[in-house]
Structure formats: structure tokens, C-alpha cells
């Protein structure tokens, strides 16, 4: 196990700047998720940590050692790839033993360690099979087995679940988390799936356009996003964001550009007549006959545990999520209350939370 320090790391491909100066400190034994939309540089960053990509600028330290110019094989790092990257001509056991064999570990010890890893991952009955004879979930487990058998300083995961179907993904998510809790090895996990990041990581790093937008614990980021990008990226269904203006004449309200009037309890200081963006998460909207906002229901999506409603209020569309069952159908009109304590404000120009 080791800490990983990423100091002002940059990566250019020709004239294209993909990673534009990133600082992340990862503690010993921490599980950090790098999350962001495609093209944000998260995979490139992971590949730089692995040593598969040259670093244009900055410094990466594993433990106390600067690894900028250290070959991947000497970084003592294991990586699980999106498409598993199992060696197709080797059996499960050979796949897992490969790194130990290269290191010159004795046959007996290789067998012991492979068996132990196979036991942890319930791969024992599959040890003699070739990768093509395995299902997607089993291949994923072999890929993890190949990583853990080495007992590396750091685990890197590059979107390891995106090739699996939805149900298996949830199952493997739990398995990876369980494995992590058992081994407590420093883990860096790249995903574009915010649910994965939220549910698995101790800390999330949200990346966008080659920079870190925000870093923090999952719920902290969810509740207190630094900016509109983070607010919009984290949370599903996505947060409602309405540009508009504050009015504080007789009572404090926010009037969206689409004409919805939202009463405020505590308008931001100096907000009068200023413009801004109001954000409210779908689950912070409640049905309230005395509510100030009226919504014409357009789409209802009951999933059993919750009900998602998409509707129209004045000129704005609004996403609402109710934990209780609601008997609404398209065409109905309902009055809503936006929880004033949960309303977020952002600067319209900079996107920063105010």
C-alpha cells in the first residue's frame, strides 16, 4: 500500500491539452474515484499513473518515489482494464500467474497465491478454463484476480464495469467494494458512471475538460457542489437549473427566465436585482397544495420505489422525484413546494456556487 501524489500533472497530445494541471493527494489505503464525462482526461490521468502514457509536465509520486520516468513494470501497480485484457491464449490460472512468473516467483508460491486469489474471487472451479469460455462477469473477476494476486501498492481500475449488463454491474460493484474492504489497498477507480463513483469511493474527484472541478466525499459533493458543472453531473435524475433574477422588493423571490416565481427564505447577500442560476434537486421538490409553484405533468415514470415526474411550469421544464407513490398522470396539474433549505445558487457567469 502506498500514497499517490499527483502534482500539477499535465498531458498534451501535440497541441491538444488533455490534462491541464491536476493536483490530487491520495491517502494510503484510500478508494478514490475519478469521474467525469468522456474526454475529460480521467482515463489519460489513470494511464499516466500506470506508466502507459508519458507525462508532459508535473510529477506523480507513488509512496515517496517519483515515478515519472519509471517503466510500468517497476511501479508496482496493478490495473484492471475496461475490456478485461485477459491473455486469450492462457488459462485463468496462467493469466493470474503471469506477473508472478515474470518476477521469478517459485512455482509453489505461484500456485499458493493463485489459489488464494481464486478462493477470494470464487474462481477456483474456473482455473483451467480459457477466457473465451467465461462469461463477462467471470472475466471481470479474473481481471481482478490477476491484479490482486500480485499484492501491488496501488490498484487502478479503468471503467471496469462498463462492458457488463446493468444487473451484473450492480453485483460486481458490490464485489469490488467488498474486495477493497478486505484488502484495503490504495485504489484509483475511473468511471463515467456517477452512481458507481458515489457508491464505491471514499472520495470522488470530478474532472471536466482536463481539470479537477471538485474533490470530496460523495455526499459532500452531492449536497455542496462547487459549481454548476458538478451540480449537473452528480445526481440522477439531474438537478434542475434555472437562470433568472432575484427580486427582494416586498418578499424575496427568484424569477426564472421562464417565468416561474420561486419564494426564497434566505436570498444570498446582495442578491437584489442580480441575476443568477437557481438549482434544486428533483427529490427536494414536494407535493404541497399550498406550494407556490404549479406544475403540468408531462411524463410519469413510476419505478416502484420512487416516482419520477417531468412537467412544465410556465416556460420551464421541471424534474421531480417522489419517494412516495403519487397518483398523477400526464395532463394533471399539481402544486409543488421547493425546499428552501436545499436550494442552491450559482453565479451565471462563472458557474460557481454563491
Amino acid at each position: 500500500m502506498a500514497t499517490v501524489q499527483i502534482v500539477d500533472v499535465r498531458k498534451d497530445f501535440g497541441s491538444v491539452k488533455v490534462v491541464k494541471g491536476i493536483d490530487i493527494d491520495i491517502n494510503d489505503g484510500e478508494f478514490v474515484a475519478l469521474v467525469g464525462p468522456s474526454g475529460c482526461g480521467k482515463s489519460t490521468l489513470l494511464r499516466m499513473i500506470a506508466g502507459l502514457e508519458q507525462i508532459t509536465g508535473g510529477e506523480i509520486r507513488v509512496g515517496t518515489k517519483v515515478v515519472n520516468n519509471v517503466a510500468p513494470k517497476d511501479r508496482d501497480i496493478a490495473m484492471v482494464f475496461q475490456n478485461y485484457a485477459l491473455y486469450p491464449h492462457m488459462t485463468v490460472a496462467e493469466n493470474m500467474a503471469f506477473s508472478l512468473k515474470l518476477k521469478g516467483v517459485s512455482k509453489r508460491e505461484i500456485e499458493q497465491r493463485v489459489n488464494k486469489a481464486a478462493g477470494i474471487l470464487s474462481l477456483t472451479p474456473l482455473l483451467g478454463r480459457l477466457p473465451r469460455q467465461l462469461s463477462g462477469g467471470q472475466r471481470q473477476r479474473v481481471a481482478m484476480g490477476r491484479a490482486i494476486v500480485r499484492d501491488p501498492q496501488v490498484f487502478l481500475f479503468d471503467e471496469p464495469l462498463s462492458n457488463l449488463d446493468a444487473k451484473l454491474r450492480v453485483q460486481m460493484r458490490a464485489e469490488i467494494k467488498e474486495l477493497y474492504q478486505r484488502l484495503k489497498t490504495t485504489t484509483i477507480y475511473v468511471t463515467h458512471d456517477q452512481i458507481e463513483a458515489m457508491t464505491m469511493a471514499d472520495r470522488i474527484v470530478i474532472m471536466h475538460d482536463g481539470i479537477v472541478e471538485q474533490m470530496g466525499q460523495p455526499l459532500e459533493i452531492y449536497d455542496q457542489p462547487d459549481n454548476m458543472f458538478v451540480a449537473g453531473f452528480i445526481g440522477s435524475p439531474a438537478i434542475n437549473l434555472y437562470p433568472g433574477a432575484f427580486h427582494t422588493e416586498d418578499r424575496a423571490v427568484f424569477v426564472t427566465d421562464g417565468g416561474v416565481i420561486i419564494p426564497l427564505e434566505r436570498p444570498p447577500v446582495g442578491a437584489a436585482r442580480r441575476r443568477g442560476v437557481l438549482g434544486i434537486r428533483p427529490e427536494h421538490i414536494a407535493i404541497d397544495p399550498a406550494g407556490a409553484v404549479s406544475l403540468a405533468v408531462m411524463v410519469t415514470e413510476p419505478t416502484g420505489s420512487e416516482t419520477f415526474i417531468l412537467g412544465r411550469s410556465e416556460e420551464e421544464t421541471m424534474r421531480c422525484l417522489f419517494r412516495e407513490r403519487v397518483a398523477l398522470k400526464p395532463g394533471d396539474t399539481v402544486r409543488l413546494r421547493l425546499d428552501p433549505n436545499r436550494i442552491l445558487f450559482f453565479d451565471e457567469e462563472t458557474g460557481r456556487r454563491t
Partner: protein
Amino acid sequence: MNRSFTYRTSLLFLAALAALWTLFPFAWYFLVSLTTPGHIPRRFSFPDVLTLDSYTSALFGSGAKGISANYSILPNIINSFVVAGLTVIGCTVLGFGAAYVFSRGRSTTLAVLFNALLVIRMTPAVSLAVPIYLMISAYGLSDTHLGLSLVHTMLSLPLAIWLLKGFIDGIPTELEEAALIDGASVLQVLRYIILPLAAPGVAVAACFVFLASYVEFMFASILSRGSSDTLPIAIAGYNSDHQTFYNEMAAASFMSMVPLFIFFYFAGRYMVRGLTMGAVK
């Protein structure tokens, strides 16, 4: 599809005609090889006696039938296999390394070089005859197995590289990256990951290179002075200034084809698969 009887019969007839057209010379030649040595085939006819004398004469020499025919093609068979074998080793070893670089490299220089290789492959070999003769002689390699196989390697290397590159292109780079992270050096990646996965491609390339060397005539005839004559040269040798030994020539030709038949019987299927695999993947 349920086509009419006439339709199917006429298709079959056309196919038979095409086969006959192609195979007739072979059939005639085969009959010539089974005729008593010394008989000169003027026009197509069935021999009165079928005999293997021409075959034994070609294999072991026969003394009695004339000076030129009094030699055995056995040493030439060995020469052919040695030259083709050396060529296969040269082309697969060099070709594999080069194909890997061409497959993984991302520079314009490499792309230009790769296309240049293919263009060179299309130039008529005869245009190279004089310079190659001079070079090989200058290094004292004429009439040696090594000299001829060096030339054959040069001729076949572009094809080998092209075939192998197709195969290596189909191997995901993630496998190499996984191996690098697993602790492999670049050479170990080649040895443990790329080579086993490209093995069918190496086999296909080896077969093509072997065949090309085995049947090559022009350079073999320019560079040989007797001791390194390959089979095609020996077969052509039955045609002397004074006499042509048709029967022995035919027998030797058919014997030289045996390895080809064996090869196509076992490897033809894989070869086609290998070719198309390399092409589309």
C-alpha cells in the same frame, strides 16, 4: 434455392469445362511422366505401356539414357528445402519484428516506409537481376544456399511483413499494456503475448514464403553454378542444347509438386482463413 435441373446441369457442365481447360496440360504432362523414358510426345496420346522408369531415373539417375539425364534430383530437393528453410527463418524473424513496429508505430515515416515496401514488391524482379548478381558475387556468396536464401528473403519479406502486420493489428493493445503492467519488458511482451497470438499468422506467412522460395526460378538460375541448384533449376536442366528429356522432366516436375499438395491439403483451409483474418481485422 430450388433451381431447375437444366440450370444446375449447365452450371456443372461449365465448371467441368473450366476444370478440363486448366487441368488438361497437367493430365497430358502426367501421362508423359508415365511413359517410357526416351519417348517424345508429339501430340496427345495414351502411352502403350505405363511405367515409373522416368521417376526412378529422375530420382536416382540412370546412366544409360544420355549424358544430361544421368543425374539425380535428390541433392536438388535438399538444396530447395535448405534454401526455402533459411528463407522462412529470415522472413519470419525479421518480418515479425518489422510487422510489430509497423503495426504499433504511429509515425508518417513508418507509413511511408510500409507503402514503399509494398511498392518494391510490385517492381519486376528482373530489374534487380544485375545488381543482385553483382552484390552476391562481390561477397562471394554466389552458388551458396545462404546467398540464394538472402535474395529470396529480400523478395518475400514485404509479403511476410504485410501478412503479419494484419495479424498483429488484430491483437488489442490493451493486452500489451496489461503485460507491461504485469511486469513484462517489451521483448517479453513480444515473446509471451504477441508471438503466441500471432502464431497462425506466422504459420501462414511461413507457408507463403516457403512456396515462393521453393518455386523461384530466375534468381536461382542466375546465382547457381551447380552445387546449390534448386529443384526448378534441375528440372529445367533436362532441357539441354542437344536433347530434351521430356519424361524425366515431367516426372521430376510432378515429384516437386508433392510437398505443395501435402501443404495445401493440410494448410489450405487455414491459409484462406489466415489471409482473410489478416485482411479484415
